[in-house]
């Protein structure tokens, strides 16, 4: 904060101001993006991401059973795929949250 009091070396250059302003804004944005949501919110996010994957997988499996008469194989494969998709969702959610953490440090 000390350089705020220093005289500007080149006051006639408007780009200098622009650049300094952008640097400040950039730093502020990074800090704001990192501000963590609450623990409850994070937990609910992971939970619904996983449950959503399993539910959609099971639903698709059930529908293929209905249409192609593959019972019970469609549901079996669908649920397993759903678990994989749910895990993928959770990993992605965790990655995106960690990224915003790293941006601040």
């Amino acid at each position, binding site marked *: 904060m000390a350089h705020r009091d220093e005289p500007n070396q080149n006051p006639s250059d408007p780009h200098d101001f622009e650049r300094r302003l952008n640097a400040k804004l950039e730093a502020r*944005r990074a800090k*704001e993006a990192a501000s963590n*949501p609450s623990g409850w919110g994070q937990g609910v996010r992971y939970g*619904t991401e996983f449950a959503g994957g399993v539910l*959609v*997988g099971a639903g698709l499996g059930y529908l293929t059973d209905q249409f192609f008469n593959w019972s019970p194989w469609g549901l079996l494969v669908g649920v397993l795929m759903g678990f*994989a*998709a*749910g895990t993928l969702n959770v990993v992605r959610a965790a990655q995106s949250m960690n990224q915003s953490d790293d941006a601040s440090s």
Partner: protein
Amino acid sequence: MADATNPIKQFEIHPIADFSIGGWNLSFTNSSFFMVTSVVLVAGLLSLAMSKRALVPGRSQSVAELLYEFVAGMIRSTAGDAGLKFFPFVFTLFAFILMGNMLGMFPYFPAPGFHGFTFTSHIIVTFALALVVMAIVIGYGVFKHGLKFFSLFFPSGVPWPLYILLTPIEIISFLSRPVTLGVRLFANMLAGHILLKVFAGFIIMLGSVGALGVLGAVAPLIMVVALTALEFLVAFLQAYVFAVLTCIYLSDALHPGH
């Protein structure tokens, strides 16, 4: 008596004006009333706040500008500057959900029937909003990138036989997005309002027991006051989360393939 303490009764839908086309019940309900109120309030308050268009904003104008900056900053940090073309959509979505959640915090409201209603506590509303988001993501992605948009389902840097396994998983993961987006908002609002009503019901039940009951009713009363504050936080937070995830999904439509 049972009606007064029934925690589910607040979610009931009552038709205000009966209306149907070809056997489809399209009545104007209390849910529709609150949606219209939400839209009118957001549009009216924002245009009232911005009516002066002062260079140095007054109190109401700075609130409106704060809201604008908040949503713009959110889009910039998640979808980049290219995401700003979706600003009108994300801002509308955020303001609509936020106003709906906040209107739901009124126990009594000058509406037909005279009681409050939270339209975001119905899964069909939140799921429809989530489907609109996904329709825009898919529509814009295909319009902008053509078939390359579907490279979303083929993660790069993988030997091709694995696509047999990975592509269905990616498709399920993509299809689960509107489900999680809708369910999260719905579940938070539903659970919060039931919890409020259950604790408020304890006050009435204990209060009808006698002098000792009235004394005991102080504990749930404190709980209800604390929960109301928490619910205001949840009402804002869930509107924010919905908007942020919309931005993240929109950034997939802008830059597919990573």
